[in-house]
């Protein structure tokens, strides 16, 4: 089932990158599709992530800086990174203070591409 495959991608990303604590795949309007979480409420962060990603893309456009790669919120206790997954979804990743965001940027590419393909393959046929 596509749902299990989507969750497997989230778990695999957490296995590959030390410091990731939670991941959520959500629709662009903030509804959880699947989540691998323990420390955050997936509903809450999905809704916030949708708003954050929209604002970040708007800011990228306003600043004339090309295409948004990821939106990162950095705090004293860790960070939150949000990636666009195609046009219909987003990936939220939370991490502790030791999360290497450069490594996350590189490793997330394959995860985002895999998620896009899974979503495309699960698309209802007209």
């Amino acid at each position, binding site marked *: *089932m*596509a*749902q299990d495959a*989507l*969750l*497997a991608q989230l*778990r695999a990303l*957490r*296995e590959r990158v*030390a*410091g990731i*604590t939670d991941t*959520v795949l959500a*629709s*662009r*309007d903030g*509804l*959880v*599709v*699947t*989540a*691998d*979480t*323990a420390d955050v409420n*997936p*509903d*809450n962060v999905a*809704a916030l992530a949708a*708003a954050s990603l*929209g*604002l970040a*893309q*708007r800011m*990228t*456009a*306003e600043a004339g800086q*090309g*295409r*948004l790669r990821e939106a990162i919120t950095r705090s*004293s*206790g860790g960070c939150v990174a949000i990636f*666009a997954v*195609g*046009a*219909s*979804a987003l990936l939220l990743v939370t991490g*502790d*203070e*030791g*999360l*290497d965001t450069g*490594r996350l940027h590189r490793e997330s590419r394959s995860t985002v591409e895999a998620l896009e393909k899974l*979503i495309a393959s*699960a*698309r*209802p046929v*007209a």
Partner: protein
Amino acid sequence: MLQRLGQVLSRCAARGHCGVVRVAGEPGGTIHLSGGGVTAIDTPGAPGPEVILLRSGRVPEPAWAAAFSAAAAGPMGAELVRRGLVGAGDLAALLRAALADAMFALASGGLADCVPAGAPADCLLPLAPPADPGWLVAATSRRLAAAAALPALPAPAGHARDRWAAAPGAAVAGGRGGGRDAILALANGRRTIRDLAFALGRGVFAVTLEVALMRAEGLLVPAARPDTPAGAPAAAAPVAARPRPPREPAGEAADGAGAGPLPRRRPGQGLPRRDRPAAGPADRAALLWPRRPGGPGGLGTSGPAD
């Protein structure tokens, strides 16, 4: 590989190298040097001094932020001491311990390559005077040997890979010393020893020893891998899809393109209510697709009726 790293650091010490040594591997990291001595190590494999000071509660976050702002023109360490947040001797001991711990994390995880780079990099809390690389390598060798001798742990690299859970029936009743209560509370089957160290603001080596002892006493068990049938972490609880309001015209920015007005939240618009019937897994994936007449979907459309 630790031997190779030791040789590289020895050559750096001999020529009084000022700069960094980039260590490739898992976790990898950056070793900062000044005059051939080691001043700091940045690695995602072990908590640094800032994490240790903040997470352990020794320095409150607002005090840290104030010191950080004030230290813009000078050393952060001196500012922390000046403000009485940490003693000079305590800070030096902490920096030295964090250095040794980071080296242990670098060495036990796997070193693929180590390359000196000339340009010094910013370092918030450098150890002064710098540590002798020979001392650091010798201390790391001893720690690696100690970790390898622990009977209750898998391979040393497991501290960044194997995840730990409280054993069934391990009562979190309190009263256990050595930070064991905190470890039991945090061991949720998802955290590695490295993750526990970050969450606690303690060294990876110290947590390694504690976890080994707790496992031997039956308080902790290795968590099954997520891809094994018995070890799958719980997926997100089913989320009730809230009926969505009609979309605002030009409400959301396209991917990377310019857009119209920002979306406005309507009065009463909030999070999905859990008292509504939950959407099953198949339905939830369909949230990603626009609804076609008579078909599933949720993006830009109304959700299930009450």
